[in-house]
Every structure is written in structure tokens, then in C-alpha cells.
């Protein structure tokens, strides 16, 4: 049951936030039901998740990230600031 589909975070029908109601074990097919929130990082957009990963891999150096991504330092810094704002909003929901 290996899938590589992206985890949807918002309802395609009404745009509301999705949460997990069922989890399944790959080996014995046991399922668990309930109400589980998606982890905070999974609620970010794909672009934001990629950014977090890059940020982590560059040891948090915005200067290095800017050079590797071929964009200016303040552009990277502004992206990060927008994401911080977004994550703070998600935390308060």
C-alpha cells in the first residue's frame, strides 16, 4: 500500500481545513479511527514545506540559501517572515 500522493490539507469542496479520521497499518491492515489534527508543519503549503526543508539543510543560513536559490538575501528573509506569520496564525486556530 505504498502511495506517494501528497497529503491534502484542505477540503477540495469547501476549502475548510481537513483532519485525520483514520490511520491504517501497512503490514497487518489494522485501522484506527478517531479525530486527529494534522501536524502543524503538514498544514503548510508545499512551497512552504520545501522552504522549511531547505532552511534546515542549510543550517538556517539565509545567506547560503539566497546564493543557492539565486535570489537576494532580503527576498529569502521576507519569505521566511511571511511563513512565520502564517505558522503563528495556524498555531492560534
Amino acid at each position: 500500500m505504498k502511495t506517494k500522493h501528497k497529503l491534502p490539507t484542505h477540503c477540495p469542496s469547501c476549502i475548510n481545513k481537513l483532519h485525520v479520521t483514520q490511520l491504517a497499518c501497512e503490514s497487518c491492515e489494522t485501522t484506527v479511527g478517531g479525530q486527529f489534527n494534522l501536524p502543524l508543519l503538514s498544514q503548510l503549503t508545499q512551497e512552504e514545506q520545501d522552504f522549511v526543508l531547505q532552511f534546515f539543510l542549510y543550517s538556517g543560513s539565509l545567506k547560503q540559501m539566497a546564493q543557492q536559490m539565486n535570489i537576494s538575501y532580503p527576498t529569502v528573509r521576507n519569505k521566511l517572515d511571511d511563513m512565520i506569520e502564517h505558522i503563528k496564525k495556524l498555531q492560534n486556530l
Partner: protein
Amino acid sequence: MKNYFLKPFTYFQEKQLLLFGLSLGLISCIIQLTTTTRVIALLKAIITEENPPFVQNIADFIITTITMVLALFIFGKMINAKTRFIDILNTVLIARIPLYLFIIGDINSFITKKTKVILDSISNPDEMANQFIDIILLTVFGFLVLLSLIIFGYYIYQGFKTATHLKKTSHIIIFVILILFIDFLTRLLTNLY
């Protein structure tokens, strides 16, 4: 393809922008030696009697750049504590490039001479008719100057937005007023020497 031309402050590194801005500034000061134009503020050039000395061109360039950079840097810091001096400096250096049109148009005192001839003939309708082509030429130049002011506005806004992450409309309004005010102030400052 990334649009380097429309978004230089997004795609170029700070050292590239600085080098480019300073080089073109220096070249403009050298070209200015062949003109009778003095740039007394970012947005204002005046006609002088003689070709300005190189030292004066450089002094004008430094003073007009630095006053604007300092004002925008202080305002930028108020909007966003993370604002860096280098980004504001680059913004002003790059944004003023289109304004070098003032200087390029007056190579060999071209515009100055044409303007003087037309002004002298203004009281004489017959002579005015002879200046027809020159009048059109000056009108086109005036139009280009207007265009260069718009391009300046575009780049200074882009640069400042990238440097400070400017978002609020109220900040944008203050930004515009600040530029006009500092530009006026610079004119007084450069008139001191």
C-alpha cells in the same frame, strides 16, 4: 525565465547590485564633464554656465545619494527592524540610473544650447517657426524625462519593498512623501557649495 530586468532586487545579489550601481554612477559623473548640467538632487538637474568640475560631480553624486539613503534607511528601520543599509543603498543607486538621462541628453551641452536658442526666439514668431524641429526635439526629450521619472518610481518602490517588506498602504504614502521632501531638502543642501 526569471525577470531580472523587472525585479533586479529579487534576483541579483547585493554585491552585484552595488558594483553595477556604483559603476554607472561613476560613469555618469564622467559623462557629466561634457555637459553644462548639475544634478542637485535625485529628481532635479539645473543648467550651469560652464562644464562642472569632476570633484563637484562626485560631491553632488555622493550627497544626493547619501541624503536619500539615510532618510529611507531610518524610515525602513521604523517599518522593519531587519532592514539593512546595503539594500537601501542599492535601491537608491539602481533607481537613479534612469535619471542619468538628464546627463546623457546634455552631452556636449546639447539640450542646454537648444533650450537657450528657443528661449531667445520666444518673443519673435518668425524665428520660432525656424525652431520647429528643435521644439519637437525638446518635447520628445521632455517626454523621455517624464518616462525616466516613472521608471525611477518603479525601481525605488521595488527596491524599498524588497528591503523592508513594506505592505501597509499608509507606509507607502509616507514613503512617497518622504522621497519628495528629501529631494527638496537635497536641493537646498547642494546649493550651499
